[in-house]
């Protein structure tokens, strides 16, 4: 995936369908025109693209802003639906939205070490940020987490490494958005962990 494609994907995370494609097209047009400007200044096309992406800023911030607009659109659509259609249709619409927002699966590609305290019970979200970024969790700071999911708790299994070196399912845990720390209850031992989708 090129840096441009990666940027467009990141800038439209949480957006779907036709709207996602249109936003990507609009941003790509902008980036290519900025790139032309940099090429005229003597930069190569690749350098120009990177400088253009830098000018546009953090794609995750953009994704969040676009997502907020989308949420506002859906609220308006739902209000409109309530006014003009039967209650049965409204329920169907709400159900559709709910399904679209369901938390994506987490399956970690690599293991993460739990170090230090043998009875470690808390794992900072930053610890597994890279995995979470692949799904709906889009921005991290030390104190807060931003996400496109509306679920307050998102469940998955933790796998821990047994003596044989094999990973086995040990506990179910979750990220509580109000307290964005992975709660790991009684991990079997210090060692490596992986995450596995619950769904």
């Amino acid at each position: 995936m090129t840096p441009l494609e990666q940027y467009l994907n990141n800038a439209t995370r949480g957006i779907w369908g036709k709207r996602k494609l249109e936003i990507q097209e609009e941003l790509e047009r902008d980036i290519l025109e900025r790139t032309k400007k940099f090429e005229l200044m003597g930069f190569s096309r690749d350098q120009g693209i990177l400088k253009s992406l830098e000018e546009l800023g953090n794609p995750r911030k953009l994704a969040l802003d676009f997502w907020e607009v989308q949420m506002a659109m859906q609220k308006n659509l739902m209000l409109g639906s309530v006014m003009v259609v039967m209650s049965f249709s409204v329920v169907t619409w709400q159900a559709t939205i709910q399904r679209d927002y369901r938390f994506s699966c987490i399956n970690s590609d690599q293991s993460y070490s739990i170090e230090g305290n043998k009875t470690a019970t808390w794992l900072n979200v930053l610890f597994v940020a890279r995995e979470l970024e692949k799904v709906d969790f889009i921005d991290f700071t030390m104190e807060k987490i931003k996400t496109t999911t509306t679920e307050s708790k998102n469940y998955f299994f933790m796998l821990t490494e047994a003596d044989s070196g094999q990973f086995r399912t040990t506990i179910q845990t979750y990220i509580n958005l109000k307290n964005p720390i992975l709660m790991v209850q009684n991990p079997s031992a210090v060692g490596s962990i992986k995450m596995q989708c619950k769904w």
Partner: protein
Amino acid sequence: MNQNLDPNLLKGNLDLILLTILEEGEMYGLEIIQEAQIRTNGYFDFKEGSLYPALHRLTQAGLLTSEFRESDLGGPRRKYYTLTEKGQHSLSKKRNDWKQFSSAIDQLKGAK
């Protein structure tokens, strides 16, 4: 962006800035950015992409309409934004609000 410009001031008045620029006629995103820069001698130099969600929000609110058109450069299409009648009314109101606010600040200064 102008180093001396308070980002909150810009954010709070972004709608007014965008609607004012589009009062001159339809434009696409990068053109709006360039227009803002040229008309204010670089004071509004907002290169960041945050402009786009703001344009989408204004479109959603019915203050702008948008339309994709083929670019003369080929490749992805350009998306043009146009001020609607509702947008024109909103712009007039925002201008009045701004004048009143600015005038009140001046009066505070004069009261010293």
